């Protein structure tokens, strides 16, 4: 029996481990399938991490090292090259590595911190051939940053997610020519600062409302046909343009990696594809917590750490058997606000609710409603799907509240 097992040793898993340790738990084990701690940050060698948390711009590995150092100093045990294969609802974990073979651990509490994966080409159904030269942006990032190889020289990028934007700059710096970044939507899903620093600074055109309609080439990509799309995201005939290139990078979204959560029978949200959690980041299965990209996709690692600390501290309280008075206040949204995390409140205490919107809106009011009553409102000049928003509710404001609803009003 192990008090706390953490699945995944990325920033979320490490922050959660440290927080649980600081809350008094000693019997902790981190399981990580990679051969190093750090998660996706290991391959993010660009600057831009930790601005909120540490007030300085760190690279991904530098940010990760801050936490890895703590994990090592506190001597929190971790196993690398260890893949978790299964979790049962009663918290039996099955994992494998080459030293221990396939083994099982019974945990008192589990924190899910498995991160996310990139959406692959299949989900897009792009017509044409299937030659070499089509990669997800993260895979290309791995080839370039971790292995030192160039997956291509003439590049078109589909999707303007942050990884795609960052790879546009990276490939350019490595001497490749990035011909265009095509984005299906009329706005980019990436951070504004990345569009500025990764595209505009290098004169890489961002083609909004454009998609790739066909891939050409027998053995290696020889070009792509792109086209403009209408409001229904359907290609407009006559707007096709052929761009010769040897590489197509896809940055078309990240999906939380929740296969294990499913085996543990954790309830998942169809919108975030992550677990449904309360303010403690506890899932529908008592004693199983989730944080980081496995819960919902974050753009900034600072918020990952913050969320993981909540999960770590709450797991510690759970292990010690501390349970408050139970309430159940569901948090609903109007659809314009796509989702919130948490989705439910089970205790009346101060809580920051994170959310994303479905489209770009200017001059808006965010309203937290209890029936017809406005509990709290907040004005924002601009909100966009690419940037996570938050609103903080005080304990007093939750007095007498039965259910909450978040709405967005355009002023």
């Amino acid at each position: 029996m192990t008090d706390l097992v953490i699945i995944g040793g990325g920033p979320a898993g490490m922050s959660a481990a440290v927080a649980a340790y600081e809350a008094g738990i000693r019997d902790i084990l981190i399981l990580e399938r990679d051969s190093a701690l750090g998660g996706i940050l290991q391959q993010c060698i660009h600057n831009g991490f930790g601005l909120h948390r540490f007030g300085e711009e760190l690279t991904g590995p530098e940010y990760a090292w801050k936490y890895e150092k703590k994990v090592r100093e506190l001597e929190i045990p971790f196993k690398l090259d260890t893949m978790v294969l299964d979790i049962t609802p009663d918290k039996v974990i099955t994992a494998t590595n080459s030293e221990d073979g396939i083994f099982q651990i019974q945990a008192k509490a589990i924190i899910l911190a498995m991160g996310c994966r990139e959406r692959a080409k299949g989900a897009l159904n792009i017509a044409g051939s299937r030659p070499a030269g089509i990669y997800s942006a993260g895979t290309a990032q791995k080839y370039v940053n971790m292995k030192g190889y160039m997956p291509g020289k003439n590049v078109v990028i589909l999707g303007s997610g942050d990884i795609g934007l960052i790879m546009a700059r990276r490939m350019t710096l490595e001497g490749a020519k990035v011909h265009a970044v095509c984005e299906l939507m009329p706005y980019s899903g990436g951070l504004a600062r990345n569009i500025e620093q990764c595209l505009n600074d290098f004169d890489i055109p961002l083609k909004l409302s454009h998609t790739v309609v066909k891939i050409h080439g027998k053995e290696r990509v020889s070009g792509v046909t792109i086209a403009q799309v209408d409001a229904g995201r359907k290609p407009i005939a006559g707007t096709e343009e052929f761009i010769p290139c040897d590489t197509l990078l896809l940055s078309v979204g990240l999906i939380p990696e929740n296969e294990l959560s499913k085996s543990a029978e954790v309830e998942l949200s169809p919108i975030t594809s992550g677990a449904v959690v309360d303010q403690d980041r506890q899932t529908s299965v008592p004693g199983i917590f989730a944080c980081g990209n496995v819960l919902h996709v974050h753009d900034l690692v600072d918020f990952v750490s913050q969320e993981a600390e909540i999960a770590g501290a709450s797991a510690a309280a759970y292990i010690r058997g501390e349970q408050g008075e139970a309430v159940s206040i569901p948090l609903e949204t109007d659809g314009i606000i796509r989702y919130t995390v948490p989705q439910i409140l089970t205790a009346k205490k101060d809580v920051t609710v994170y959310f994303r919107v479905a489209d770009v809106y200017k001059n808006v009011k965010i309203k937290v409603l209890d029936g017809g009553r406005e509990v709290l409102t907040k004005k924002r000049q601009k909100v966009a799907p690419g940037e996570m928003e938050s609103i903080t509710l005080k304990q007093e404001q939750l007095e007498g509240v039965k259910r909450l609803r978040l709405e967005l009003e355009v002023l």
Partner: protein
Amino acid sequence: MYDVAIIGAGVVGGMIARKLSAYQLKICILEKEHDVAMGATKANSAIVHAGFDAKEGSLKAKLNVQGSVMMEQVAKELGVKYKNNGSLVIGFDDADRQTLAELYTRGKSNGVKDLQLLGAEEVHKLEPALSSKVVCALYAPTGAIICPYELTVAAIGNAMDNGAELKCDFEVTDIQKTDEGYQLVSGKETVSARYVINCAGLYTDRIASMIGDDSFSVHPRRGEYLLMDRECGTLVSHTVFRTPSKMGKGILVSPTVDGNLLLGPTSVDMEDKEDKETTAEGFAHIIREANENVDGIPMGKTITSFCGLRAVGSTGDFIITAPETGFIHVAGIESPGLSASPAISEYVADMLKEQGLSLKENPDYNPNRKSAYAFREASLEEKNRMIKENPAYGRVVCRCETVTEGEILDAIRTNPKAKDLDGVKRRTRAQMGRCQGGFCGPYITELLAKEMGIPYEGVTKFGGESMINVGVTKEGK
């Protein structure tokens, strides 16, 4: 000098090679691609048809029914997955009902066992996810599914273990007749053989013309597919066909032996034998008809799409003929060629015998091959024993399909050896899951480079110019 040269390493050439490797013969398989199973064999519906489709009395009908009966045993010997899941041909109205009755009669006279005509209630009970518009069905309990490239890799691997040779990147471009037999030319290389079996799929007509035989032609007919995440693999348990009409057989919905859900194929006559492009129209067609057949297919869970070309022969039937002693065509092997392949191999062996080739049993012949899934399917204790012996079985490389380094190394080291990323994919399923190699591609590239002793950037997706990397970074230099 080989006794037999087989042109084409598809399922047909592969099964013939395996059959002949049971005899004391020197055999060589010649394949123009970088790997085996690169033609129609890698992109089809993967159904072992029961045999009610083909016209009574045709070679297709006879070999289909025989092959389908033989397949389970062949799969067992070769250690490949096979599932007797049964087929349903669904009908939406009275006209369909009539056609199904005809198919039933045809199936019976072809010798298909246990066929049944079902009413609405029975068919919905058997397959609850069917659209409520389905009113009747033909049920063929002997229908089955198999993985065609797994079968072919295993058949050729088994043939090689029994002494056959495989030459890839060998495109036969010319054939010369000699006193002893034939010389098969590919660029500067020549292979001599006493007997030649032409299993070149779409190019069997071109091979035929190299010996001056223009008696048949073969044209491509495109079939496109969508493959869905394993999450959807249990939506239906049977293979669900539509009632065939003048428009063709329509889009089927079927589980695969690996637990995915397969939708397709379209059917479009083509001219270009190399055009395996998928099309937006094709996708739209598949989605529309699949949704008519079965409720609740989550189209967002598509993980890949692909296209195969049927080799449609000019006679309407399989063309298995000998234009002259020493040469056999196995042409026009469109569907149900996969199902028929075990029977085709016996048929061809008999033809060779008739032509005077002596078939003496190979005393060392072993019909069995270790399954590529030996580790995956082992018990927990067995797995742990294997990991202790070879720690590479403890390292998971492909996270989506849980494929270990040990299994990937096996694929790179076992006949017929995987030499590129797609080769590893077809043998182990690594890169076949929902992330399609996003995570493990770079690592498998490394394993291939190391095992084959080639530079990292020399690794390809499927041979030729299909490079994964085109250079090194500034730091890499």
